[in-house]
């Protein structure tokens, strides 16, 4: 069955709750259950930690501070990840990302969040081979641009033209990767 709350994801969490003597059955997807803040037995770390974490997210983003007249389209309440659909509200409540694009969608909260959780904001470990290739290409590109300037300065136009072609090829490669 589909989760009646969002109508999108399958309901995977089922439980009964007694409110004012009335027993009600709930069927929710994991996300909606987390949003409701239900304490589910058997969860690896429970939700308490994520409640704690999400508390960290309920602050004004840096770019908005001292800028209260910002129009509604910039208000975080309507912000939504274009790839997975996670809203700012969900993100701030559950303190989790829905996909890799969420990182750019919620970019403005990233640094303060990472500093609170890790005391750091910059990765300093393993880099995958693919990304290594990209980083090297970017590095080469910078070097070639410097060379281009030098050759133009020296009025060595033929060589400059060759370097320009190399730069274009590299740029194209970087874009398609």
């Amino acid at each position: 069955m589909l989760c009646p709350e969002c109508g999108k994801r399958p309901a995977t969490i089922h439980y009964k709750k007694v409110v004012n003597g009335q027993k009600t059955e709930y069927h929710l997807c994991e996300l909606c259950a987390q949003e409701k803040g239900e304490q589910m037995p058997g969860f690896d770390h429970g939700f308490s930690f994520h409640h704690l974490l999400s508390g960290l997210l309920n602050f004004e983003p840096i770019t908005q501070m001292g800028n209260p007249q910002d129009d509604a389209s910039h208000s975080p309440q309507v912000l939504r990840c274009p790839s997975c659909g996670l809203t700012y509200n969900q993100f701030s409540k559950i303190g989790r990302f829905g996909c890799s694009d969420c990182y750019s969608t919620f970019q403005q909260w990233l640094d303060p969040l990472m500093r609170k959780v890790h005391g750091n904001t910059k990765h300093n470990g393993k880099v995958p081979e693919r990304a290594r290739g990209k980083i090297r290409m970017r590095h080469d590109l910078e070097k070639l641009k410097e060379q281009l300037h030098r050759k133009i300065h020296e009025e060595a136009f033929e060589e400059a033209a060759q370097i320009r072609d190399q730069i274009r090829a590299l740029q194209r490669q970087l874009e398609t990767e």
Partner: protein
Amino acid sequence: MSLENFIQRATSEWMKVKGPQSDIVFSSRVRIARNLTELPFPMMAGTSQGEKVVKTIEKAWKKIKKHQPILQSAELIRMENLTDLEKRVLVEKHLISPSLAEDSRHGAAIISHDESLSIMINEEDHLRIQVLYPGLQLEKAWELASSIDNLLEKELSFAFDDQVGYMTNCPTNVGTGIRASVMVHLPALAMTQQLNRLIPAIMQVGLAVRGIYGEGSEALGQLYQVSNQVTLGQSEEEIIENLIGVVLQMIEHEQSARTRLTSISIIQLEDRVYRSLGILAYSRIMDSKEAMKRLSDVRLGIDLGMIQDVGSNVMNELMVMIQPGFLQQYAGERLNPEERDIQRADLIRERLRMEKQTD
């Protein structure tokens, strides 16, 4: 099923080998989180997307497995094809997490024949590569996990960013995505009441400590898991070195506490150890709390050379096998808690009797 056969199946190959520092460090584990680009994390995935993740990873594994014997021997298991009991046993062997067993959609795991490698699919993240080794062998575990990661990366595109590193579902895993942990047995520190001072000190250097079995602050069997908390800003090697440094200090403290105990109150200690051995060898009903406590005592007695006719791995074996999933698998039927306590006592008695016979 005979007990011998059951043990054969119940204990992972990697558990049968003695690792370095294995009198105090039972096992080392390294787990790294990875996600695919283009697909939402499991939390946001629809049914077809969840299935696509499994298919994509399965395809990659089949392509690369010839390069790595441990992958060649592995098997892909889908959670939906397992009974609750089978899943529970995998959790008790630490091969999958409780949340993969209970809450995942399209959850699966690629588990190597010796069970030292397990790749969880569609847990919190698309991939969780886990390596388990006996004793203190974190560097070796990281090496294997990283090499599996390199192989997979040839076929898969992982979500990575220059600034935040590997992108994960939970911010606590961002960056390296690594969680390194060791399981340590600290009975002497517990007996001499030094843990209340030691644990806060360990937490201060950015590590987490928790009891492995049992709830809350109570650690059953004096087994603790120590792991890194920070995953962003330090390299994997730094994280592991830092953890090893702290674990070596814990080993030193535990060893000197053991020495002190044997010099001050050897008769009291011997009494405690043999009393526990007697109870394990003859009881008819035993709950898991008592069993863990007694097994911990006996294991200490073995490590101190007091008990010589019981192998030290018997205790590690039993600590795994007396859990509810295993007991029920051994019995071949569902058991209620009272029946489990009887089955547990039976299993321990039989296992100890087997030890005497092989002498």
